[in-house]
């Protein structure tokens, strides 16, 4: 993943003030849909009871492997549990893993990235080599390795995905800090006689962190996909839990008889990742426009 911050292109214009573009424009449809989708997911996370139509754990063998219908919107699984309600109840676990992993990876990345950018020659060099070595591992492979060490659980999923994706973000943050540090406005601040602490606080950190807002939303979707992959491989949450990756894994056995057990949770994951990414993209664009 790369996040490029395009430098503001200064267009020379006459002394007469350029007319300001009108402030209010209707938000694009994509943004509305993405925000609406995310709102649904957040509701499902906080109060799944509001959205669920059945008890996600209630067995009803009479209705086992029921195709999607008016009663069972997403169909039922081999034990007759309502898939829609299970997906709703699984949201909390999936999102917590996604958000937790994102928080962990960004914290780690911020620490590594700052040291790599601002540390002395030896320290920065060492951290940079470490980041490069870690980057050479595919993220999922690295996460697998970590789960193998810590054993499968929700916590180890957060840990594995968080640590696994940190090096990539560390690289981005390092670049951001370096470009802020070498910018004209930092030199102007030095020329004004501001101290290092003040420059770091006022200019370098805020400008380096600005693109992270976008990265965070992009990263949440990514983390959920990775966490689900781990669950799918049986290295995440245990089966009775309705975590989305676990749902996928459970449905795999019935893929020829009951397509909905794998396809629908898969689509839900895609929907969340897409919504988060769309929102992230919009935040990034509006930040790059240099608006307040």
């Amino acid at each position: 993943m790369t996040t490029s911050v395009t430098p503001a292109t200064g267009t020379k214009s006459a002394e007469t003030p350029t007319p300001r573009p009108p402030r209010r424009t209707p938000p694009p449809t994509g943004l509305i849909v993405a925000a609406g989708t995310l709102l649904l997911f957040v509701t499902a996370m906080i109060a799944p009871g509001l959205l669920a139509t059945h008890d996600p754990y209630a067995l009803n063998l009479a209705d086992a492997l029921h195709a999607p219908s008016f009663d069972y919107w997403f169909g039922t699984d081999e034990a007759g549990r309502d898939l829609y309600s299970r997906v709703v109840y699984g949201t909390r676990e999936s999102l917590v893993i996604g958000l937790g992993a994102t928080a962990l990876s960004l914290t780690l990345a911020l620490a590594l990235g700052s040291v790599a950018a601002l540390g002395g020659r030896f320290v920065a060099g060492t951290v940079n080599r470490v980041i490069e070595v870690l980057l050479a591992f595919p993220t999922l492979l690295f996460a697998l390795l970590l789960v193998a060490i810590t054993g499968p659980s929700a916590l180890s999923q957060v840990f594995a995905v968080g640590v696994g994706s940190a090096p990539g973000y560390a690289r981005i943050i390092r670049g951001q800090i370096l470009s802020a540090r070498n910018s004209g406005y930092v030199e102007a601040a030095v020329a004004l006689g501001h101290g290092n602490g003040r420059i770091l606080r006022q200019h370098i950190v805020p400008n380096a962190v600005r693109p992270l807002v976008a990265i965070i939303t992009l990263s949440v979707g990514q983390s959920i996909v990775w966490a689900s992959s781990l669950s799918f491989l049986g290295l995440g949450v245990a089966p009775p839990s309705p975590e989305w990756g676990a749902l996928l894994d459970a449905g795999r056995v019935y893929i020829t008889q009951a397509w909905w057990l794998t396809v629908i949770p898969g689509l839900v994951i895609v929907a969340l990742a897409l919504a988060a990414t769309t929102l992230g993209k919009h935040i990034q664009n509006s930040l790059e426009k240099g608006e307040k």
Partner: protein
Amino acid sequence: MTYTIGAVQAPPETIPAVRPAAPPLKRGRLSVTNLTVGFRRRGAVHQVVQNVSFSLEPGQCVAIVGESGSGKSVTARSIVGLTGRNAVVEADAILLDGEDLRTATDRQWRRIRGRRIGFILQDALVSLDPLRPVGKEIAEALALHGWGNRRERAAKVIDLLRAVGVPSPQNRARQRPDELSGGLRQRALIASALALDPEIIIADEPTTALDVTVQAQVLALLADTKKRGVSVILISHDLSVVAHLADHIVVMQGGRVVESGSADQVLNNPGHAYTRSLINAVPGEDTRGKRLSAPTPTSAAPNPAAPATPQPVADDGPVLQAVLQAVDLVKRFTTPDGTVTTAVDNVSFTLERGTTLGIVGESGSGKSTTARLALALSSLDSGSVTLLGQEWSSLPEARRRTLRREISVVYQDPLSSFDPRWNAERILLDSLTDAAGQSTAQKKARVAELARQVGLPLEILQRFPLNLSGGQRQRIAIARALAPNPSVIVLDEAVSALDVSIQAQILDLLVDLQKQRGLSYLFISHDLGVISHLSDQVLVMKDGVVVERGTPDAIFNRPAHPYTRELISSLPDHPRRTP
């Protein structure tokens, strides 16, 4: 006026001609009548060009002159159908040899562009593909129009590059744009525009951002092209640039033609006040002490409640006091491949209080590095700088900080020197480094006062630099430099990116501020005209060495060093000033 380059000396035989030169075909006649261009935005059409008419005869040059936003580039682009999808182009006639271009389809445009009308864009670095050797770029122009086979095209590229005065064209054709100097890039771009021997060349600000000697070379090249019968449309914000080349000049302001006539008439007997202001805006040795711009409501007014800053220094001030002194500055850089270059070599100067020291030189002459050394933003390899008689370059940064308020800086590109998250007011509040203990209201009042001094209306303070014009940005940058009440301001190419008319306003502002506050300027520029307008003492730098120093009068009228003479001879012809 003499040009000192190889481009013109090329014997005419070496100039490749696709079309047999024998019958002087009366081609390349272009006439534009009542051209009006608007851009559709949110349903409404915003007019940017209104009722522009001119005609171009074969082998002639029409210059379109005006400041940024005057519609001159849009006018040129609509002649080649490059105004973009949102444009609404209307005209009574756009005729190229009788062919009506108003109804041309995309297909027809593609046949016309390159083959019949060549277009030279302003910025050679962004107009050339950075990943492709320039030779390939030029060959592509030929290939697109089905010219010759691969081998013929390769030979033609070499011929073209030679014709535009590129030394050792075989090697240069294999280099990518970033490996070439600005002048060579511009020539490569001209070569690609000339590739198919078009009848008309449109050059949009072809020399802006180039050093004066390179500018002279490019203008000579265009003059040479014109002599071969090519018609030229030259677009510039600077009347002095077009003076040498133009047969006919169209002066535009705010999308309208304010004056149009023969070059001689427009330059020597301008009818419109705006044309006169453009001519008078060009700085030079003869404009010292005179105002370049007409007084406007935004120019700095003398301040009745002036802050308690040093008294204005009279011209025959009794004791000149050195505020900034540099002794034998040396700065070396090591390139990644290990070679050491000396960017600044034994440079010494003294800046007296209330005066301006100008450093003139071309890109790579070490003048900006000298500025950074004077500001102690870059460490010295040897030598020393003293500020107000105190140690400066030898201090550790922590001790230097308290003294920093005495010396401030204005950069060429103000936009990159502003934190993009801050509006103008925040930028200026941050620069009040001596304001410890003052209340927010007091600080805001000081910022408002600064804005008034640099001639900015107060509402500008709430805007972000990105939404300000080039002139407004530079005023903010000057206000920031003034905020700590410094003794010295270093101006590093501070007016080089501005249109001449805006440049004139900023130069006037600088002169006013110097008088009011007794400031000392270290003024760095590649433009000898600007330097001699402003400076009391001038250093001429070349390859890191000071080759000549003296008063502007001596440098301008009795240059001793050959390089200084070359710089002066490269200055474009100056239109006669009118009162």
